[in-house]
């Protein structure tokens, strides 16, 4: 525990690092930002990718498989946006179809069976909005993940590395802990979408971003995220983040593995159950 505390996570009182909410949003989408597969490559040893949901197909917007975190076998499920234009198109810009959520769930069930912890990596503007996504039950696929993840009998940590777009992000974020990179965000709606619905003016996204309280720091304050991971000033220094995450994840899983499963599930339930309860009791 001491070790974790001493690592350079976000300093809450550090106002010099305060930034406009929309600048964070822009940073989360910036070109050249590491994507899901970069994290897998740098965190996981001997990663083996497994494809397909065994129901319909294989969603290229999601990379899932097994590997080792240090010496610990883990399941990793990562949304992938791609870097080049060609790759981005192939990955559907990180927007998953229902088969992506079902692929994720399939891998989580395997993790449960074999007692592996699960790392979910979220980076999406949202679950895909399209005819086929609806036909194949986008809502149902996400709903099933929310239900099943709540009682999955193995530790889950979800890492937000960029965009955290609404239900599409939540479909992989019913976890014991939610960790966010400093420049990631997590919101019920994109600031642009919010501005155009509320004020009929998408250019008011800056105001919307502030109002929605979507930055990593906000989310920690609101009790949605457990950790905010400080990012280096230079993109090249991302190695530091990977080293830090490797240690943090390893220690967190070691800790939660010692916990009886029932206790782990109770804590996971309570993490979400408490949000909004206070308000109700206050009346």
């Amino acid at each position, binding site marked *: 525990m001491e070790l974790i505390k001493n690592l350079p996570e976000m300093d809450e009182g550090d106002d010099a690092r305060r930034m406009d909410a929309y600048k964070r949003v822009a940073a989360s989408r910036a070109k050249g930002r590491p994507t899901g597969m970069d994290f897998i490559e740098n965190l996981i040893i001997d990663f083996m990718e497994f494809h397909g949901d065994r129901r319909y197909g294989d969603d290229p917007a999601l990379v899932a498989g097994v590997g080792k975190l240090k010496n610990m076998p883990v399941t990793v499920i990562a949304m992938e946006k791609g870097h080049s234009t060609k790759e981005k198109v192939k990955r559907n810009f990180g927007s998953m179809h229902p088969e992506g959520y079902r692929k994720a769930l399939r891998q989580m069930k395997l993790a449960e069976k074999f007692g592996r912890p699960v790392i979910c990596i979220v980076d999406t503007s949202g*679950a895909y*909005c*399209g*005819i086929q*996504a*609806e*036909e*194949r*039950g*986008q*809502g*149902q696929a*996400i*709903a*099933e993940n*929310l*239900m*099943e993840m*709540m*009682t999955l009998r193995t530790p889950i940590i979800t890492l937000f590395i960029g965009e955290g777009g*609404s*239900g599409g992000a*939540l*479909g992989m*974020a*019913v976890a014991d802990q939610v960790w966010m990179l400093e420049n990631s965000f*997590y*919101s*019920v*709606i994109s600031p642009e979408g*919010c501005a155009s*619905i*509320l004020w009929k003016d998408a250019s008011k996204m800056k*105001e919307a971003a502030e*109002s*929605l*309280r*979507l930055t990593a720091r*906000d*989310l920690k304050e*609101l009790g*949605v995220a457990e950790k905010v991971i400080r990012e280096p000033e230079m993109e090249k220094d991302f190695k530091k983040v990977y080293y830090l995450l490797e240690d943090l994840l390893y220690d967190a899983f070691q800790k939660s593995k010692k916990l009886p499963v029932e206790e782990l599930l109770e804590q996971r*339930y309570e993490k*979400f*159950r408490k*949000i*909004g*309860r206070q*308000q*109700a009791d*206050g*009346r």
Partner: protein
Amino acid sequence: MLKKGLFRKPKNQLEDYGKTSVREMREQHPEVPDDMFLSCPACKGTMLAEDVNQNCGVCPKCGHHFKIKVRERMEILLDPGSFAELDAEMTSRNLIEFPGYDKKLQSARNVSGEKEGVVCGTAAIGGFPCAVFFMNGDFMMGSMGTVVGEKIARIFEYAAERQLPVIGWTVSGGARMQEGILSLMQMAKTSGAVKRHSDRGLLYVTVLTDPTTGGVTASFAMEGDVILAEPGALIGFAGPRVIEQTIRQKLPEGFQRAEFLLEKGFVDAIVKRQDQREYLRSLLALHSKEVLV
């Protein structure tokens, strides 16, 4: 010169019954009270409001399901006098100080006459006790904020403790964006409560009504053991306008309607509002723990 229309056959007034719009009728007969007639948006027919009410808010001509008020729906479906409301006083506050939210809440309370977007409680249907929730489309489009999430979670926990089945009617525009991330978290919270109820071997039935979309579709609406839908109800994750904007093409006729979901395998059955009570009674009887004689 001949007067225009001289040779036109005088119309029998009865021929027009059901053809004139409500507006025309009001112009012709200003003495008729405004709420006496209704115009069906589906078949364009005009009919006595009373006839529609008698028919559970369903058009007697074409079967179109009108939107109805939450308390009216409860009256149609629940055994008279059986309903006992839970958490009736719970009401939202502006937790993240979202601009304009206080005002919106106030007007939603005024318009709907309800405190929040869902009504929960215990009741009986055909003599079978159950826990019920009814979402309220008149309250900020049935959007789910922390209070809606809390009430839903509580009704499932209450039902799990007392071994009651849950039957819920959904209508929602999705998560309530004025509560930011806190409303998104309600999807996880409610799903967790549904799972715990389910793991106790208890029945959960959802009836999806027009429209059920967004975060509610992607959580408890789609988590029923049995999922029913009203005819013609719009059911989807993304709203049709958002999809059209994303893919830049028109959506096919009937897309995201209840019949479409039935065909695609996401709804167990479409049940007309008039038949729901009897349908649910049979369903509850089949799942009843008591031995039926």
